[in-house]
């Protein structure tokens, strides 16, 4: 029973991924795509969580944490790039 539910939720999440990839391809602006990528990261977190339940293992928990961090860092980096044109600025004192 629980397995079926997990399978269904995985399927739903995968369909959501397709929706996100549609947004990623279609655009129309770069921020749209970045948000899509960020949402894909969140989706990955969910899918990994569901999968680890399905596989009955706790080995994937650190991946969930990592995706959370990376998705955040990546989105911030993109946002800064879109805003200022560069990711890491030079130290002005030098």
């Amino acid at each position: 029973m629980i397995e079926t539910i997990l399978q269904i939720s995985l399927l739903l999440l995968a369909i959501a991924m397709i929706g996100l990839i549609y947004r990623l391809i279609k655009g129309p602006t770069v921020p749209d795509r970045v948000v899509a990528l960020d949402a894909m990261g969140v989706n990955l977190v969910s899918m990994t969580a569901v999968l680890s339940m399905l596989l009955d293992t706790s080995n994937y928990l650190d991946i969930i944490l990592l995706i959370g961090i990376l998705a955040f860092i990546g989105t911030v980096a993109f946002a800064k790039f879109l805003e200022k044109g560069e990711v890491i600025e030079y130290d002005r004192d030098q």
Partner: protein
Amino acid sequence: MSLLHWAVLAPFIMAVFVPVLRKKAALIHTGWFVLILPIVLFGTFLQYLPVTMNNNSVMQTASWIPSLGINFTVYMDGLSLLFALLISGIGSLVVLYSIYYLSKTKESLHHFYVYLLMFMGAMLGVVLSDNVITLYMFWEFTSISSFLLIAYWYDRERSRYGALKSMLITVFGGLMMLGGFLVLSIMGNTFSIRELAAQATELNEHPLFLLAMILVLLGAFTKSAQFPFYIWLPDAMEAPTPVSAYLHSATMVKAGIYLVARFSPIFAFSGYWFWIVGTVGLFTMVWASFNAVKQTDLKGILAFSTVSQLGLIMSLLGIGAASLHFDSLDDNIFTTAVIAAIFHLINHATFKGSLFMVVGVIDHETGTRDIRKLGGLMSFMPITFTLSVIGAFSMAGLPPFNGFLSKEMFFLSMVQLMELNLFNIDTWAVLFPVLAWVGSVFTFIYSMIIVFKVFTGKFQPKKLEKKPHEAPVGMLISPIILALLVVVFGLFPNLLSYSLIQPAAAAIVPSIIPPGEQLYVNIYFWHGINAELLMTIGVVAVGILLYKFMPKWVRVYEYFPGKITLNQFYNAGLYAAERGSNAITNAYMTGFIRTYLVYIFAFFIAALGFTMWAKDAFRYDASAVAPIGLYEGCLIIVLLAATLTILMAKSRLTSIISLGAVGYTVSLFFVIFRAPDLALTQLVIETISTALFLLCFYHLPKLSRHEEKRRFQAGNAIIAAGVGIIVTLLGISAHSSKFFASINEYYIENTYEKAGGENMVNVILVDFRGFDTLFEIAVLSVAALGIYGLIKLRLEKGGETNENK
């Protein structure tokens, strides 16, 4: 190492000390020191005369590479001794002559004598070697030292051209000859010429026999300037005259003759040998003597005359092969041809050497070698005139000089061919004496030109750079000795007959001489009025007539268009080869990485596709395939969509983001396929590389930044699709044909028990197979250092840094 070994090596050893002598004893002409060596060698070789006269031989071996059967084996028989005496004897005379010819101060003498000694040693090595590999080594030594000698005045363009040409042609022949030697050694299973000759009959029936013969003959013909390879010799006349006298008349060009003579016992029984050597030689003789008449440079005439005389000797050696088909010695008429070849070889070395030296004297004392500027020198240079008369008349074949005798024997051999009923010769036999006679007529004409155009006629002082006068005595000693030999051999030919000629001839045709007997050699002046004497009289009569009326018919040469000369072919061939290879290289080396990738991938597709097709390697077996969940299908759609976006995207930024999506999806696949460590690493690396791509994107130059869709190219699409298909097919086949169980059971059992870890991936990385990890760490360090270096170190052109800017 015996005395003979040291005799071969002595010139090389001496060559090492020449530069020292030149420097330490600068007041004395270096040539005086060098002169000692060939004289000593000549004396040494003379001691072997009694040995060879009794048809004995000396053979001594020094190990070189015994495991391969390659040894430095010297073998001294009649033929080797004859050549060794020629090389050391004429070598001494040439060194003596060069002492007076080359200036002590203006010329770089140490170069000259080093090259000359190298050549002398190499030449002695060629004629004394019994091992074909050693022979080949010395053979190439002669090519190289001759190349250096021709380009002695390397600041002249013509010298460099001539040196290169002779190098290309003789080295081509040398390599062919090496091939022939190797084929021979495969056939006979030995490198020794004597052992090869011992199994000549078996070799004759071997299927590779003809190939070996043609390859060896190519070597001999290129070195001895036979048709059509003679073209390098006239251009080699840019060398200093002593070099021309030594290399291009007496020694190096006779290396090919030596080779033909030396290999006669192996090859000569074959009819091909008779035809190839005989006709090529005879044609070369006629062709070169015909061309010699139109030359205006004295050395040019002598060069063509050398070619012509070498052709004569070659054809005699070819015809001499017929003697092997007779049973008894008494009625064997074709031994005459062999004896004539040897005799003429000696004669040619004497008179051609002296003629070259005479030309050198004329050049030295008047400043020109052009016969159109010279004339009437008889009264200025009486000794030189006498010498040139002796040399040229001997060359023309007039009595009482030695050339007359060998020319008579030449005619005799040719006439005797008409009695031969071997080798399908039949009616063709009559062509041989006719051609020989025509060649001799032209020989007569150019010999007369050398004497009369230079020494008689009108004296033209305005055209000469210097006021002509007789040469210094030292310069005349060598040609005088040679001219004396011409006369002595002419008057007393039997001095030579049993001392040198008979042993040498016996070495060429050993199989027909029964043990304890000798060839009958009797060279004498008067042998009655017969065909050959009449032919000589005809040559003289027609020759004089043609010489008298030369202005009338000399226009014949204009009918030979310059475009179809062999030189033209050589130049055009070289040019075409250069341009052709350039064109080919430029056609495929475009400089675009894209093109090279196309080659690599196309080859990849072709090689793997062909192998799969030819070996019928495609397998499909679905039994080991795991079930596919619906969500996995969705993720694959995501992956495909993102991949296609990378290809189709208009903006590069879209491509970068899509690449990130691909990476993330892949990491999800790692999760699905239960590889947490891979998924972790993949996520981090994907994030970092996306950031790096952004960095690159930001730094694109403004000008080329305009975003345009990638153009579609059918070729690229086909290649890309081909690679994809091939790899997919390979993957399916590989998965469908597993022959062995995986080794992973071992790891599963032992990860905890032996390595004390629970994470199997990590235990494999750092314990079971920790070496790979070590070097991947190294790769990352190198990459990091490289990036740091690329960013920090900015060397401008000229080596200045702008690190601190």
